[in-house]
C-alpha cells in the first residue's frame, strides 16, 4: 500500500512538473492561432520525451552515471565541448525565461512590475536550491503544478463540441491565414517545448541524486509512462482553452497574462487564483531544474564533484556555477528582453539541439559495458531510431524556418 502511494505521488509530481513556461506559451499561442490543428505535434513530442526519459532513467539507475557525465567519455572532449556550449547556452535562455515567468506570475497577483520582482525571484530560486532537499523540492513544486489542471476544468466547463475538437486534431491542416512555414515552425516549437533537453539533464542527474538503483526502474517507468502522457494531456488542455476562448476573439498570445485569460473568463476569480498558483509553481520548478542543470552539465563535463546530495562546500564549483547562472539569468532578464520571445527562442533552439543530447543517450543505452543486460530492446530501438531521424530533420530545418518566418510572425 505504501509503495502504491509512493508510485502515485511520483506520477502526480511528474504530471505537475511536466509543464513549464515553454509549454504554456507554445500551447497557448498555437491554440489561439491554429486551433487544434497542431495537437499531433504535442503527441509526437510526448512520445519522444517518454522514450528519452525512460532511457535516461535506466542509464542513471543501472550505470549510476547521468547523461552528460558520459557525453565526454563517449564522444570525446571536443565534440563534448561543442555539445556543452550549445546545451549550456540554450539552458541559459530557458533559465532566463523561467525566472521571468515566475516574476510575471507574481506581478499578476500583486501588480508590482515584474522587472522589480526578478531579483527577488532569482534570490529565492538560489535559496531553495541551496537549502531545500532535492526530493522535497521536486514534490512541492510538482504537486503545486497540478493547479494547472484548472485548464482542463476550463475546457470541460465550456462544454465544447468534443467531436469537432477531435476531428480537427486528427485531421490537421494549415488554417486560413497561415502558411506552411509558420505551421511547421509552430509544430517544431511544440515539439521542442515537450522534449526540452534540460529535462533530460535534470532527470538523469536527479536519479543519481536520489540514489536510484535497478529496483527503482519500475517506479521510473510508471512515472514516465503514465505521468508524462498525462502531462501532455494537460498541455493539450491549455491549447484547447486558447482555441475556444482566445481564437474566436482574435487574440494572439504575446504575454503570459493572456495564457491565463481563458481560465478567468470561464471560471472567474477562483479559477484565476488557482491558475496563477499553477503558473508560479510550474515556472519556479522549472527555474530550479534549469539552474541545477547548468551546474550539472558543466560539472559533469569537467569531472567535478556535483549534486545536492553532498554538503554544499563539498561541491563548491558546482554551486558556484549554479549561483553565477542564476545571476546571469537575472541580469539578462533585467535588460527588459521580452520573456515570451526568449521562451520562443529557447524552445525552438532546444528542438534544433535535440540530436546533441539524444544521440549519446541512445548510444549508451545500447552499450552492455554500461548497462549490463538492461540494454534497449529491439522495439524500443526501432522507435528510438525513428525519432533520431525526426530529430535530425527538425535540427536541420529549424534555423532556416526561424529566419523565413521571422520568429513565427511572418
Amino acid at each position, binding site marked *: 500500500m505504501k509503495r502504491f502511494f509512493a508510485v502515485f505521488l511520483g506520477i502526480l509530481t511528474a504530471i505537475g512538473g511536466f509543464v513549464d513556461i515553454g509549454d504554456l506559451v507554445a500551447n497557448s499561442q498555437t491554440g489561439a492561432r491554429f486551433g487544434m490543428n497542431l495537437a499531433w505535434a504535442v503527441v509526437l513530442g510526448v512520445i519522444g520525451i517518454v522514450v528519452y526519459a525512460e532511457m535516461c532513467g535506466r542509464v542513471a539507475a543501472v550505470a549510476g552515471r547521468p547523461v552528460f557525465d558520459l557525453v565526454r567519455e563517449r564522444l*570525446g572532449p*571536443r*565534440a563534448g*565541448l*561543442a*555539445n556543452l*556550449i*550549445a546545451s549550456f*547556452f540554450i539552458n541559459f*535562455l530557458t533559465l532566463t525565461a523561467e525566472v521571468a515567468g515566475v516574476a510575471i506570475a507574481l*506581478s*499578476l*497577483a*500583486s*501588480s508590482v512590475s515584474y522587472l522589480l520582482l526578478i531579483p527577488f525571484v532569482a534570490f529565492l530560486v538560489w535559496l531553495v536550491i541551496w537549502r531545500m532537499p532535492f526530493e522535497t523540492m521536486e514534490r512541492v513544486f510538482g504537486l503545486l503544478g497540478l493547479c494547472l489542471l484548472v485548464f482542463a476544468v476550463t475546457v470541460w466547463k465550456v462544454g465544447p463540441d468534443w467531436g469537432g475538437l477531435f476531428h480537427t486534431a486528427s485531421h490537421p491542416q494549415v488554417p486560413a491565414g497561415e502558411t506552411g512555414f509558420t505551421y511547421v515552425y509552430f509544430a517544431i516549437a511544440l515539439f521542442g517545448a515537450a522534449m526540452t533537453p534540460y529535462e533530460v539533464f535534470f532527470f538523469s542527474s536527479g536519479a543519481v541524486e536520489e540514489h536510484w538503483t535497478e529496483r527503482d526502474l519500475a517506479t521510473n517507468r510508471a512515472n514516465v509512462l503514465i505521468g508524462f502522457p498525462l502531462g501532455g494531456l494537460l498541455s493539450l488542455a491549455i491549447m484547447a482553452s486558447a482555441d475556444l*476562448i482566445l481564437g474566436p*476573439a*482574435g*487574440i*494572439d498570445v*504575446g*504575454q503570459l*497574462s*493572456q495564457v*491565463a*485569460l481563458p481560465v*478567468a*473568463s470561464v*471560471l*472567474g*476569480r477562483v479559477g*484565476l*487564483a488557482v491558475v*496563477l498558483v499553477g503558473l508560479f509553481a510550474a515556472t519556479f520548478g522549472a527555474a530550479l531544474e534549469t539552474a541545477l542543470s547548468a551546474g550539472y552539465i558543466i560539472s559533469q563535463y569537467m569531472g567535478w564533484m556535483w549534486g545536492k546530495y553532498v554538503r554544499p562546500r563539498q561541491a563548491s564549483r558546482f554551486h558556484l556555477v549554479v549561483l553565477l547562472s542564476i545571476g546571469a539569468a537575472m541580469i539578462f532578464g533585467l*535588460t527588459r*528582453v521580452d520573456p515570451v*520571445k*526568449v521562451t520562443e*527562442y529557447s524552445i525552438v*533552439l532546444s528542438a534544433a539541439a535535440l540530436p546533441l543530447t539524444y544521440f549519446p543517450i541512445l548510444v549508451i543505452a545500447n552499450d552492455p559495458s554500461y548497462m549490463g543486460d538492461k540494454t534497449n530492446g529491439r522495439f524500443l530501438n526501432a522507435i528510438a531510431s525513428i525519432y533520431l531521424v525526426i530529430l535530425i530533420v527538425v535540427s536541420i530545418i529549424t*534555423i532556416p524556418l526561424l529566419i523565413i518566418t*521571422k*520568429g513565427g*510572425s511572418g
Partner: protein
Amino acid sequence: MRPRAMTKAALAVCGACSLASCVAHPVGPARTYSTYEGKAVTSATAAQSSVATVQLVASTAAAGKAFGPYTVVSVSEQEEGLSAVEGTFASIQPPDRRADALRDELGAILTSAVDHIAEVRIAARRGDLDDLDRVAAPLRADAAALDAFVARHG
C-alpha cells in the same frame, strides 16, 4: 565536421541567436506602396489582438471574474505593446503620397485605440472594475475600424 569546427560552429550559432533575440525586429523604410501596405496590415493585425485582449479582460473584470492586479497588469501590457506598435509604424518612411494617406488613416486608428486602452488602464488602477465594460465601450469602434482597414488592405 571536425570537432574543432563543431565548437566554433556552436559558438557562432549561439552568438547569432543571442543577438537575434535581443535586438528588436529591425524596421527599415518601405520602398514600394505594397510593401508599406503590408507593414501597415501587420501593425493593424497586432493592434486587433491588443484591442480584443483588453475588451475581453475588461468584460471579464466587469463580470467580477478577475481581480485588480491581474486586470491592471494585463491592460498595461497591452497598452505598452500597442504603443510600441504605433511608434514602430509611425517611424516607417512612407514611399509616396498614396502611402501618406494610408499612414494618416492607420495612425489615427492606432492613436485612438491606445487612448481608449489607457482609459481602461486608468479605471482599472482606480479599482473601478465594475465599470470597465462602459469604459471599454469605445474600443468597439476601434476594433471595427481595424477590421475594416485589414479587410480593405490585407
